[in-house]
């Protein structure tokens, strides 16, 4: 159970080479080895989505992937989202604007799922945004602020659901 392997990968633009146990999963590697604790562990069953990161641009559940499977890959975590000048990314800023987070535990996973959608360059409908987010659970917000933030960044306006 303790056989190690050498892993080399790029995380948020920085190259790392580490000896890691073969059985260590990617999110534990990011959190405990690289101290990138923004990606959260919510269920370890691949259902809640809190650990979502981008691997070579595609969203993955970092609790379901072994760290060594990311050999040679480009990983982006929530810590790598901010704009080059350090300001909040459009999605991060929109989450703040629309009260898209309360306790903030699911937020990194939400942002990474939506970042992938943003990079696809489509103009999704509200239903499509909700469908895409259905793999990320949030217990606090009822999703409304998250959906509104996503739609704003994707240049759409929510159809309803505002205070009267």
């Amino acid at each position, binding site marked *: *159970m303790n056989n190690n392997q050498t892993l080399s990968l790029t995380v948020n633009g920085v190259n790392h080479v580490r000896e890691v*146990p073969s*059985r260590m999963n990617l999110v534990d590697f990011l*959190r405990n080895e690289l*101290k*990138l*604790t*923004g*990606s*959260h*562990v*919510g*269920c370890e*069953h691949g*259902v*809640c989505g*809190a650990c979502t990161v981008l691997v070579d641009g595609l969203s993955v559940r970092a609790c379901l992937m072994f760290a060594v499977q990311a050999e040679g890959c480009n990983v982006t*975590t*929530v*810590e790598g*989202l*901010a704009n080059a000048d350090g300001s*909040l990314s459009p999605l*991060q800023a929109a*989450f*703040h604007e629309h*009260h898209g*987070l*309360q*306790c*903030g*535990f*699911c*937020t*990194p996973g939400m*942002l990474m799922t939506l970042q992938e959608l943003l990079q696809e360059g489509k103009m999704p409908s509200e*239903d499509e*945004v*909700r*469908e895409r*987010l*259905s793999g990320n*659970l*949030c*217990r*606090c*917000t*009822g*999703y*409304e*602020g*998250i*959906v509104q933030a996503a739609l704003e960044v994707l240049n759409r306006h*929510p*159809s*309803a*659901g*505002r*205070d*009267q």
Partner: protein
Amino acid sequence: MRTPSVGRSSPRVEDENLLRGRGQFVDDIQIPGTLHLAFVRSPHAHARIKSIDTSSSLSLTGVIHVWTIDDLPKGLQDQPIPLVHPNPAIKQGFLPYVLAKGEVHYVGEPIVVVVAQTRALAEDASELVSVEYEVLPAISDCKDAVQEGAVLCHTNSSTNIAARVPFSYGNVAQAFEKAHLVIKESFFQHRGGSFFMECRAGLAQYDSHLDQYTVHLGTQVPHQMKRFYMDMLELGDQQIRVIAPDVGGGFGSKAPFYAEYALLPLLAKATGKPVKWIEDRFENFTSTFQERDQYWDMELALDEHGRILGLQGQLLHDSGAYLPRGLIVQWISATTVPGPYVVPSFQMEMISVLTNRVPTSAVRGAGRPQAIFAMERLLDRAAQKLGIDRAEIRRRNFIQPDQMPYKVGLIYRDGKPVTYDSGDYPASQDLALNHIDYEGFKIEQANALSTGRHIGLGLANYVEGTGLGPYEAVTIRISTTGRIFLYTGASPQGQSHQTTLAQIAADQLGMDPSMIKVVTGDTAAVPMGVGTFAARTAVNAGNSAHLAALAIREKIIKIAASTMEVKEDDLELEDGFVFVRGTPDLRKSFREIAIISGGVPGFSLPDGVSAGLEHLSTFSPKQSTYSNGTHAAIVEVDIETGHIKILRYVVVHDCGRVINPKVVHGQVIGGVAHGIGNAFYEHMRYDSQGQPLTTHFGDYLLPQASDIPPIEVLHMTSLSPLNPLGIKGAGEGGTLPAAATLISAVEDALKPYGILINESPLSPMKVVSLLGKHALGRTYSS
């Protein structure tokens, strides 16, 4: 004058770090050399432990300790987890030990704790522990548990009834005798658990030089946790500091003191290293307290006009295997039943039942949604039987605004009579019905049906006891650097306390809220505190912040008047300065005032100056404040698949003065989503032997983004006369009437078939089964 901040959607100060992945949840605090815990838990709902062999586990390299109850300090071998809310009605108050003692009573009960260098190693080692059990029969369902000759949850007892409490007022017998109509119904209601996204978590450190502990806990109530630790470990006040850092949701189930928490400081001291325990999701499903099952048998007596004469019934509440939280939830259930209606006579028996399942405690709403469901379903039935419109029968029974304050006749969990402080219940319902076009919907519904679509409208009203005392502490301190701090015992899990408390204080200090740093959840920051639950923070901490800020303001003005030799009445505060009105150059900064009040060593303080620019306030409300509201929803039911789609959802919400509209909106919407989960999705299932069947989010369904419709929220503002700011609580209201509203809507959609629904949650399978021969197509087989 600056525009007041209270009432505006001041931006959340909490967001920045969380958005950047810089949150500090317990597991994000990584201290080199930390050891990790894993537990061996009972796989049986009821068993006697015959032997435990830890030798293989201990022989694994990197394993430090493997403890059973016999390895605990002597005192803890005989002392169970404390009962938080003692109540003389509790006849069998079974409490769990820190680690199981002889007999286990639910799947998930901790038996052995392993400490190792990594979490993975601790889990490996826990699998090497060998426990020999004598499996005993288990009692799973609380309805079975009260039957004659039922299997006993605890072998050393003679009944599964933990408590039996009567609640009554008025002459119920007479009411039923003269009733024109008696509605008799039985309801099953289930509320699953809190299922916050961050599981329970703790990190303890021990400083041997100072003989002091620091414990980070993902808790709602750090000051209460500190008290438990002081009692259990016999510690002095200065020896233990509890910090709730960022906490990933609470919803009630992070309020209890859990057995696992007791082990953290013990093992930190025993190992001399920081020790961490992060609950995994399987543990969360099996060992975090839930709310679960209630069975209600109810009778409502009415006159020929649909006016309520009396109500009587019995409530069975599934307490699980132990009662560390006393009778809180079930007590609230019983006392919430009358709601916004005049109920002249009332008699309920609440029976708290032991079962071989994990203990139950409050989950957002805390027993209220079930009470509202029972009352609102009874009113729908009465309307059907009497041929009166559903809205009209409620109108005929509402407590009127001119009856406020209104004494219901029951004693609430705060020990005070349930006395509604303010609210306009008829107007609330009217607003909701106008907004959803209640009258117009009847035509729409008929048209839809003619094209084979089944749409229905549901409505429900509620009154919610909020703002429970005794107090919440707030200290405001202006330091000699001029920085302004607000320290509070209130401890958030996403409710925006830092933003809203700063808003309240800022208004009295004449500044922008961003200039005030709010520190929450640290027992070292403020000497006393109660914690966050029962929609209590805005009322308790909010008013304490207001009063503390007023006191600081007065102090600043006194010191400035004395040292500047001007009249107090001529002074104003703005942007960190106190200045003479009309002569803004004649001013002193808060920093200068703080330095003056700090004094000069060796000299007396000047006349009119008291020491230190700080004030501790502990506003204590005289009784609970009562928020209220109405929900109305339109659903469409697919009579082939049983799928239910929510087409519209309207909320009218009255929580008195709103501090921050965006924050309150977020609380309401989030609460409704939780209620939608309770109505349609969330079911913590067990088999007949107490084995949990839904132990991950694939089986236990939380509402997803695609399940929640846009929610339309309208506000009313009935100020509470019970506190200076007129605030009532807002944290739970969204959840309360959601299941009642949605089930009512489904029933309305299926009324062509005369289907009555007396349970929640309602799955698609259940809908199809209720439809029976009316179900379209292939889905139903009898």
